[in-house]
């Protein structure tokens, strides 16, 4: 299956690990990733906070690029997913807004037509590829690794543009279980990581993340698995901030879901990839090797 591959800003800029693992996993599952030439920032909540028309026009420009390719968008980041999916839904439904946005886009020679869909990596794996095929690709299952998933906010919220909060989270649970690991329950599973406030009000971001990490630690999880690069940075590097400022230490390794799946498929992480994780992956790698 072919998709217009929307990388966004944060993944190339901070989390090449995530992109690399997705590119390694994709051919194993028959996913063909086609680059989106010239695509811009999705216009996440920070930009939406400043100006409405700017948000819609920037997001719509990306949608138009995918329309010209004739492909649905596959996006890896929850913020990109929210911005592109909300814009796509709104512009398809509301002619007045669509006309206003197309007026802006005419300056750059584009027109939003509403011909494609926007999908997350989890949507694609669970709905398009299917759980069975994902299960069958697993050659080296994690035997009982206890995983606290961090679905993040916009994989499932707001529900008016999704199937429903818990259905989206269940899809991720099932995909984690397909790797031979076990997605376990914990307090505040559906809650935000605090990441959107990082760099704005750091002390508040840390407190929100701490609340989440407290719930995860109490659950007895071996590690955290994220789908969004913001959540990944907040929960991985965030643990260092929390240790420094709130004097609490967790030592919970954080993996991108794509990394978990990749290892289960049997494609090992390279030393550079392991080393990029702020909290060492030692515990996960030991369990993987059956030690």
């Amino acid at each position, binding site marked *: 299956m072919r998709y217009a591959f929307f990388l966004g800003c944060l993944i190339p800029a901070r989390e*090449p690990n995530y992109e690399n693992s997705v590119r390694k996993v994709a051919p194993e599952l028959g996913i063909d990733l086609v680059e989106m030439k010239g695509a811009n920032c999705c216009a996440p909540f920070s930009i939406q906070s400043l*100006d409405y028309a700017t948000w819609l026009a920037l997001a719509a420009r990306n949608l138009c690029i995918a329309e010209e390719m004739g492909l649905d968008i596959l996006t890896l980041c929850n913020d990109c997913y929210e911005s592109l999916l909300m814009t796509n839904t709104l512009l398809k439904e509301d002619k007045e807004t669509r006309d206003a946005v197309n007026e802006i886009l005419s300056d*750059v020679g584009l027109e939003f037509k509403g011909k494609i869909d926007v999908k997350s990596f989890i949507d694609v794996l669970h709905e398009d590829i299917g759980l069975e095929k994902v299960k069958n690709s697993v050659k080296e299952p994690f035997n009982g690794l206890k995983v606290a998933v961090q679905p993040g906010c916009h994989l499932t919220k707001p529900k008016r543009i999704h199937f429903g909060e818990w259905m989206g989270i269940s899809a991720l649970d099932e995909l984690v279980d397909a790797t031979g690991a076990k997605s376990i329950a914990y307090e505040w599973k559906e809650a935000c990581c605090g990441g959107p406030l990082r760099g704005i009000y750091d002390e508040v971001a840390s407190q929100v993340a701490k609340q989440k990490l407290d719930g995860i630690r109490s659950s007895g999880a071996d590690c955290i698995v994220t789908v969004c690069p913001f959540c990944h940075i907040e929960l991985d590097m965030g643990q260092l901030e929390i240790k420094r400022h709130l004097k609490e230490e967790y030592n919970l390794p954080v993996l991108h879901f794509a990394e978990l799946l990749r290892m289960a498929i049997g494609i090992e992480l390279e030393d550079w990839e392991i080393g990029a994780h702020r909290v060492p992956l030692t515990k996960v790698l030991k369990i993987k090797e059956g030690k």
Partner: protein
Amino acid sequence: MSSLDVNFMHDVANTPRGRGILTCIQCGRCTGSCPVARVIDQHNPRKLMEMTILGLRSEVLHGRLPWYCLSCFTCLDRCPQGGDVGESMFAIRNLAVREGNIPRGILVQAQSLFDTGRVVTPTRMALIQRGKYGLGKEPKVEVEAVQKILRRTSFDKLINRGS
């Protein structure tokens, strides 16, 4: 307390994404659902809606209050009135920035967007990693098109990048 502005609620309602303010019944479910309200007292979405309805324009727009929201949309999904509290927050912020209230962290992202087409650009570490993995340089953004759009919407002036 400063003077009340009776039009403030309607100014918010007439700003894109702001309609929900008109239907707020002050039940407080947004605050009960909010991950930030659980950890700090300063952020209370119900109270911010109340201040907006009462017309406390300056108190709402000029401090930190609009900027504590994570935009996680938990309140949006749980609001018994159809869920537009989380959306109203964007309307309030859009008005706040027009009165010069932009946190530095957000301004930096917006200026980066204008200059590069991205809200964040790769660190040296990320570029080294990309090289090691054979991913090449980060994908190229068509910056001229982005700037055309940002000038058209007057975003450039909002973030001190106007010519």
